[in-house]
């Protein structure tokens, strides 16, 4: 009986959560996150903040890194997304938040060479204290967020994978990030507002 009761409470709460999904289009968890401004060092040595982009309607924020094999598949696509959406007021910012004690490949000097060698057209920021990743609750590299300005606050509109095929860009069927940004630009709700990010786990030191 006890078990039955538990199950019914559980299914009720699932029902409630799914209702919430239907009404709001994104989960309570994401809704509760208050995106704080940050100031992180770019690979050109300058510090970058969200507030530097005065005309931005939104941002594509990607947590990524040097070492992760799945993250290595995406820089070309990051360049393409930034080329397409930065002129429309939605720049892409990449942030590396992985533990550099664990991964020497993710240290700042190696980020600088990667950004140069692979001709990144977007900022690649070093989240040395992992605070920004914690603020976003970023899980994996790569983990993309689309944030949008609403009532002078940044609200997460999409969280998850960039698209649905890492190694074979030509076989991508759903461009999660691109679709979310297009919808927002057209003042439409984001159809798929959350997917699971796929890649290497970001471990937090504390």
């Amino acid at each position: 009986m006890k078990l039955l009761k538990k199950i019914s409470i559980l299914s009720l709460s699932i029902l409630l959560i799914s209702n919430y999904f239907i009404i709001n289009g994104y989960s309570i968890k994401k809704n509760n996150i208050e995106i704080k401004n940050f100031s992180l060092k770019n690979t050109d040595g300058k510090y970058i903040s969200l507030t530097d982009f005065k005309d931005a309607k939104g941002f594509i924020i990607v947590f990524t890194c040097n070492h992760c094999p799945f993250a290595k598949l995406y820089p070309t696509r990051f360049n393409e997304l930034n080329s397409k959406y930065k002129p429309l007021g939605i720049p892409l910012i990449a942030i590396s938040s992985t533990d550099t004690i664990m991964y020497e490949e993710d240290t700042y000097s190696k980020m600088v060479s990667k950004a140069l060698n692979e001709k990144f057209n977007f900022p690649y920021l070093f989240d040395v204290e992992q605070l920004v990743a914690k603020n976003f609750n970023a899980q994996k590299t790569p983990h993309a967020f689309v944030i949008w300005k609403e009532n002078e606050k940044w609200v997460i509109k999409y969280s998850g994978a960039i698209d649905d095929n890492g190694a074979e860009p030509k076989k991508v069927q759903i461009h999660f990030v691109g679709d979310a940004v297009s919808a927002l630009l057209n003042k439409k709700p984001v159809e798929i507002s959350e997917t699971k990010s796929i890649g290497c786990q970001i471990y937090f030191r504390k």
Partner: protein
Amino acid sequence: MKNINLKTLTSLFSILVLSYTIKAQSYNTLWIPDTLRGTNFNLALKDTFAQIVTTGNQTITGGINGKIWGPTLFFNKGDSVHFNVHNYLNDSTTIHWHGMHLPAVMDGGPHQVIPPGTIWKPYWKVTNNAATYWYHPHLHEMTEKQITSGLGGLIIVRDNVESALALPRKYSVDDIPLVLTDRKFTSLNQFSIAPYGDSMLVNGTLRAQYNVPAQVVRFRILNGAIERSYNIGFSDNRNFSVITSDGGLLNAPVSVNRYILHAGERIEILVSFVGQLGQSYDLKAFNTALTNSIAGGETFTTGPFGSFLNHKDFTMLHVNVVAQTSSPILTIPSTLTTNTLLSAGSAVITRSLTISDSTGVTNPVILGPNAFVLNHKLFNINYINYTVPLNNTEIWQITSSSGFGHPFHIHDVEFNILSVNGVAPTAAQAGWKDVVFIPAKTGPTNSVVKFIAKFDDFADATHPFMFHCHIALHEDEGMMGQFVVTSTNTAIGINEKTKDPKDFFLYPNPANDKLYISFVDPSMVAYYIRITNSVGKTIYMLPRPELSNGLDISSLSSGIYFIQLTDEKTKLTTTKKFIKE
């Protein structure tokens, strides 16, 4: 909004239907792991990805020197094998050499944790008989996750006895490794961490098929699943010959048409395809024959233990018979070896263990009635269950009141089964084993399994060996215990306890390629050396390092390092600093 969600659902549903249709279409060629031979082995554990599902996103996997699983290692009995195990994973891990008889400090159990970015260098002399063994992660509470990701590999040991027999041994041609697992995939093609999968994988291949020559073919089969047992047989119900149990050849091939292989177990079988050119057969799991107390025999398809493969007969590998190779093996030998099994009378002690569900286990409070425990206790990494004197021959008697069957695995030794519920083992199990299936109780009657083992060669009062249920989920939940093997020579004497840690010097310092260690007391032996860099990251873990030629530090980048040395006798640790130029 509701419409949109309906649309999403519909599109998801059509993706599902589509993938199902694709699934039904075609076979994939069985992937054969690469091989590594010799005495020096480099293994690099990596987070990577593989195209396992035919279409759509790649699956994030754990790979060893490759995209999933690891190379098959060939050892010759009598050789000393040396390893560089590089952990490039995001996580700490361990690599356990399942079935190998070796020092506990080299065993790769939960005590030999390899932090990320570290190189672990175990080595040992191979004393195991020719058979198929394997290696896999064994980090406590992470085993299910890391094995699910695909980390692991096979070990093939060769010896003079096996080499003298007319057996198939052309790897991937007539000697074919089959690693049986099953996995659940998420809608994004990722592995779910779940005890049972809905998709059968052989060597990481979905819907696998393989061409076999029209001759006698040897399959080396490992049950590498998280939980499921496979009731192995062929679609034409043919007989096949079992030639090994886990740890060596049987006395003679045993002809059967079914064999239930439980998690962690290995068998090698010979199958004759002579005169069957052009035919196709399926290697199947006839799991409708399993009761609901054997993993995979449960009937449910939903819930945490639900699976579409439960209590089903399903194909594991489709085989097509093709032309014979040159110098084919055409007959199955009538005898294999003469095993001298341990006699019950030689045992000096019988240890009684229990398996039960966790009801009543209150310290710590756990799990609920569906978890299982050994000796009414959850695993505690600081608690040594047994101290086994070196060279003891022991009977381990396991009494189970559990309603579920458990594959019980013990490290360090290969054992002989004495009896299962009072009955002597079948011929196919009457050899060297390191996993034994403990059946569920029958009605109110507990099941009792006895095996006998000799604990020789390796004594170490510090690092224990493990025993546990090889269902990774049960093991992670705490169905595990540990024992140390001690000899009077290595135990810390009362008078020695107060001794100071032994001193040593490093030279040259700063060093470039080689770092030498000089002991003040020349009789001192290094039990363990750990080299860390200036920010505390462990670079090398060196169990019982050979120091006469110095430590090779050529691959370290320049900077300050710390060397922690643990003395063999006192187990006290001293740390010194050195500079790499």
